[in-house]
């Protein structure tokens, strides 16, 4: 049984694409067959985050319009045998596809893959509606900031209105433990309390994320704190019961953490 999961946030710049890429790679490392779908038509991004930008021939819109077969547009990642990317179109806009077409595409992908991860564009307009149309689960990404949480709340409301009430989980990104300790950043508990949805994972603010994005090599599963946190999220998605990492403040470049 395959899973169609949309990764969304409302607000832009909170780390949707990075999260999608890393969860995808995490799942591929766990030997799941995964396709990452970039649904942000006009603002293609996922390809550069996973370093596949030079291999794009066809895209999502080509598939939907019948300019190519689905298999021709899927790019296989050479580093992870089980990971594929369906890139977005760069020269078109969100109105060129409909929610019904996305639903059909997701249905076709379900025949081939264990996990279909849909990277959603920012906003609540057409692009968002397209992205959630074929999804049965949603992951909402937020950061511990007032604006991001407000938008996450709005998105959760819209997802609930689209029959996903029991299938919404939360990822809190860019948590700075030092600031939480000083009382200058909302804690994980605060955010979960406000949004009242299940917590799927917490990603610490880690400069390795920027470095890995520079290189086009997502870090899920490496030794960094963020890499571990992303892999744990992928494991939780497969049904494994993984305890949350206790994030530690960095001291003189030494990152220390341990399981609770």
């Amino acid at each position: 049984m395959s899973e169609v999961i949309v990764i969304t946030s409302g607000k832009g710049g909170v780390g949707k694409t990075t999260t999608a890429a890393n969860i995808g790679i995490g799942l591929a490392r766990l030997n799941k067959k995964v396709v990452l779908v970039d649904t942000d038509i006009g603002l293609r991004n996922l390809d550069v985050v996973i370093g596949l930008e030079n291999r794009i021939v066809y895209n999502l819109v080509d598939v939907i319009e019948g300019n190519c077969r689905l298999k021709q547009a899927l790019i296989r990642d050479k580093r992870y045998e089980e990971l594929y990317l369906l890139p977005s179109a760069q020269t078109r806009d969100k109105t060129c596809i409909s929610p019904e077409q996305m639903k059909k595409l997701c249905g076709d992908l379900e025949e081939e893959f264990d996990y279909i991860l849909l990277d959603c564009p920012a906003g609540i307009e057409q692009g968002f509606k397209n992205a959630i149309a074929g999804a049965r689960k949603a992951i909402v990404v937020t950061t511990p900031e007032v604006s991001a949480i407000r938008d996450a709340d709005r998105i959760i409301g819209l997802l609930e209105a689209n029959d996903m009430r029991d299938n919404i989980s939360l990822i809190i990104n860019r948590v700075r433990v030092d600031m939480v300790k000083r009382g200058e950043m909302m804690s994980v508990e605060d955010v979960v309390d406000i949004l009242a949805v299940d917590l799927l994972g917490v990603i610490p603010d880690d400069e390795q994320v920027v470095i890995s994005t520079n290189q086009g090599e997502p870090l899920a599963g490496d030794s960094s704190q963020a890499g571990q946190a992303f892999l744990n999220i992928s494991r939780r998605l497969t049904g494994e019961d993984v305890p949350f990492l206790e994030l530690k403040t960095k001291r003189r470049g030494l990152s220390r953490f341990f399981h609770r």
Partner: protein
Amino acid sequence: MGWFELRKKKSSTIAKDRLKLLLVSERLDCSPTTMIMLKNDLIKTISKYMTVEEDQVTVSISYSPSILTAQIPFAESHPMNY
């Protein structure tokens, strides 16, 4: 609230308080001003029949289950308090 009091409150607490107020009004599609008007109307209506402690009236909303709760204490002079 004075400047010193603001300084004492940690910014994470301020953020949380601001968000809670904001989200209540947004989820209800009802602004904080509307909430205050609702509260005042409730006080006005109840006061027609009994004396209440106006300063201590609270109106709050919870989500699951979604309930509007109003706490309207009687005034000390009210016969209930004798």
